[in-house]
């Protein structure tokens, strides 16, 4: 990168960076807010069971609750290192 590039390239203003970071974190925190309280505990229990058979990490388990009309769907997704795609859906 030449000196000219340095002067020509307009750096992103810090206020823009702040807004983008906040948009992401607030969206994530608000999504968690609506979910049932038992989800973290459920995740831990599932991890214990799965760990008996394969080595997985807490971050590789994803639990989501979605509302589809009057039907509530609990979706559970576990990425297993060797077999990257394995998905289970449990319907309530």
């Amino acid at each position: 990168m030449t000196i000219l590039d340095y002067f020509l390239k307009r750096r992103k203003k810090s206020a823009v960076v702040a807004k983008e970071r906040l948009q992401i974190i607030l969206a994530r925190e608000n999504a968690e807010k609506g979910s049932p309280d038992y989800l973290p505990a459920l995740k831990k229990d599932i991890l214990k069971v799965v760990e008996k058979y394969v080595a997985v990490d807490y971050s590789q388990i994803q639990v989501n609750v979605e509302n589809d009309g009057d039907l509530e769907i609990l979706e559970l997704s576990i990425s297993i290192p060797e077999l990257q795609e394995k998905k289970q859906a449990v319907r309530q």
Partner: protein
Amino acid sequence: MAKVIVVTSGKGGVGKTTTSASVATGLAKRGHKTVVIDFDVGLRNLDLIMGCERRVVYDFINVIQGEANLKQSLIRDKRLANLDILPASQTRDKDALSLDAVGKVLDELRTTHDYIICDSPAGIESGAITALYYADEALVVTNPEVSSVRDSDRILGILSSKSKRAEDGGEPIKEHLLITRYNPTRVKIGEMLSIEDIQDLLGINLVGVVPESESVLQASNAGVPVIHDDTSVSGMAYHDIVGRILGEDLAMRFLEPEKRGFLKRLFGT
């Protein structure tokens, strides 16, 4: 019908007590009988900002525990006859304020006052929840800064889930965004979140913007709420905010960088 307004933020040091003092003073100046209550048990400061720290005899906890009656504990403002201050206790434990007991005190105040301003402690623990529980309206004090915006978002979640209105399933608390320490010059050069940014992120109505100003510190030094300083932009901004709380439609002011005249630019200040 008396109104209970909580001044809250989640984050500390954003201007809750400054706002409580000025809004309460402004409402009283307009002729409404007003009481401002310090909910920050153990760290009372409203008395200092209101300039009545040497007149505190009984406090909120004394009232709740039956050691004094409400009339004995209310401190009459030295400038306005229709403004009372109920100080927090400096020595007691935070958990001394039970929800039921606070509810009874507020019910009594509702019969004698038009506006009850609750100055919340920082945080989202029991003290902050007690302060907002009975609120009809909320002033969410926010600085144009990432941690303050995030904490305000948390508090908005709590207002809509843990307040009495939320539990009773009634009409939700009316939420107002109040931005303090705003610096239009830094916003213009992209160094500070703008009003539009904060409104986008929090999604509530703006009740006013208080620009960063030297007069706020000078007012707290003297123990005179900044709204009494009619010459300062902060004082004028709080006057506008009080007007808007009362339902007046006032245009926002002081959102552009101050134009510095030739002489000012030459000699500074």
